């Protein structure tokens, strides 16, 4: 059993009297893609700040690559690559200047620095943009510079806070493809804080947080298999009007979003034919899926991860 990349033991953190984290313990295996999943206010940002050494520990123990985060702060910082939610790239510098500045701060210099900059530009497909001022790049490319910067000093652990906020689905997909290719090739452990289902589903392991507490952990599959049954989504002519009729017929509760109705079914084959028998003319489409992580979260906390304005694609 190799040493875990991160080991957290009973972490507590409070801003004044407001408790942000209470009794959170978890372990991140080396080389794992680990997701911190939770809605805003769940404590994942606080946990991220503690991990990145930005705020001091109050209570509990936190180790990165076996090093205590407080006693060996400088050594821990050397092992970490950090990508914050607000981009830490300097938008007035060129792509290369950003990488050179970052490399120098992490102790690279001379030939080694120049080689590393060229290598990162190549690996992140930024070579043709090396002399572009970052402010002129698209959101997706900015994020790529940020990622190149975070990985430049070969950190053993890469921390990402809401890495694709503000990106469209395509740019988000590109970002993750590139990230996964890079970290898998180098065995880097990744810890990503997110509230997006699409990102969480990519992770090997997840830690579910709500109101500062750990509410669950495991692989997405393990978490999803905690729920029995499957999720049936119906596209209807008028979901609101039909809700009570369908609920009564199926003897379960349903959720309305727009013209869609979602319900959990235990025995899909029979239940679908039952529905089609009764409401054939009102059903425009139907989809059967495994329970999503949002369903799991809902089950565990009684609240949904998806908040107004956020959509899971």
């Amino acid at each position, binding site marked *: 059993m190799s040493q875990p990349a991160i080991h957290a033991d009973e972490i507590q953190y409070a801003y004044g009297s407001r408790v942000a984290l209470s009794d959170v313990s978890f372990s991140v295996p080396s080389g794992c893609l680990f997701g911190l999943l939770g809605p805003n206010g769940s404590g994942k940002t606080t946990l991220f700040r503690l991990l990145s050494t930005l705020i001091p520990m109050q209570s509990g123990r936190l180790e990165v690559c076996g090093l205590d985060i407080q006693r060996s702060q400088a050594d821990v910082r050397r092992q970490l690559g950090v990508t*914050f*939610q607000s981009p830490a790239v*300097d938008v007035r510098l060129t792509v290369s200047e950003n990488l050179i500045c970052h490399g*120098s701060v992490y102790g690279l210099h001379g030939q080694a620095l120049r080689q590393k900059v060229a290598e990162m530009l190549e690996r992140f497909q930024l070579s043709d943009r090396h002399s572009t001022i970052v402010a002129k790049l698209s959101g997706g490319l900015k994020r790529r510079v940020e990622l190149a910067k975070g990985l430049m000093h070969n950190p053993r652990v890469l921390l990402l806070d809401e890495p694709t906020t503000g990106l469209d689905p395509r740019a988000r997909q590109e970002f993750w493809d590139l990230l996964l290719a890079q970290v898998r090739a180098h065995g880097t452990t990744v810890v990503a804080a997110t509230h997006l289902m699409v990102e969480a589903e990519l992770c090997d392991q997840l830690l579910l947080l709500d109101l500062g507490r750990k509410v669950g952990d495991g692989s997405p599959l393990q978490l999803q298999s905690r729920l029995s049954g499957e999720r049936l989504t119906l596209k209807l002519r008028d979901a609101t009007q039909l809700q009570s009729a369908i609920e009564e017929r199926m003897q379960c509760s349903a959720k309305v979003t727009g013209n869609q109705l979602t319900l959990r079914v235990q025995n899909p084959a029979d239940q679908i034919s039952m529905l089609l028998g009764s409401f054939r003319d009102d059903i425009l489409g139907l989809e059967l899926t495994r329970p999503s992580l949002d369903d799991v979260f809902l089950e565990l906390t009684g609240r949904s991860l998806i908040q107004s304005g956020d959509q899971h694609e």
Partner: protein
Amino acid sequence: MNSAAVLALTRRELVRFLRQRTRIIGAVGQPVIFWLLFGAGLRSSFKPPSWADSLSHAVTYQEYFLPGVAALIVLFTAIFSTISIIEDRREGFLQGILVAPVSRLAIVLSKISAGTILAILQAGLFLLAGPLLSVIGVGAEIEVSWSVSRMLMAGVFLMLIAAELTALGFIIAWPMNSTQGFHAIMSIFLMPMWLVSGAFFPGGESGWLFWLIRINPLTYGVAGLRRLLYEQTLPVTPELPSMLVCLAVTATTTICLTLISAAMVSRASVHNAT
């Protein structure tokens, strides 16, 4: 390793400065306009302080004001340089540096060295070019020393004042989240501090204003610079402390302010995460 970090971060500041042309106009333009306008307007009502009697020529207001304007250019440059801390914090760049394995003193020193380089370049250029304006008739005649040794000494001393004021700006900017707050401090603290440093007017030799000027560390910066502008040694008067005192006060203040800055950065706090 840390010196490389200081160099890299200083270089970043300089590159940013060069890409924002308006900052140059802001830091040099206003002081020069002040100098020309106040110099012309107050010429007839200015009464030179007692130390000026030792000079062979009559000191005009414009000549009196010269080191004060250099100090103002340094002050403005220091303010602009340290306001960037607030921008760095807002843009997220600062957080990226704070989680890096660099000493906190290196973070402070990179800001101070960048501010100092920019300040001495701009104020030094003014001190060289200012007296020449009289040749084309815009300013009054100014008789300052043009010897290389004096200019070098003035340059070194200017560097010390620049480091002092940038460190002061650092202490003000570090806890702030908005640049508006900094502008408020600039109006009610930094500008008055400059006004009562002997830069703008001599304070007389007694009374509350005299004491206010006396306890202001910047007074010793302006006075030291004033001394280095003349070839001959000016007499020590209550308004014009000796060079040794000027040097000691300015150097001590610079070191203290730098250490306070480093202590502020070292204190890990929630503020860093916002």
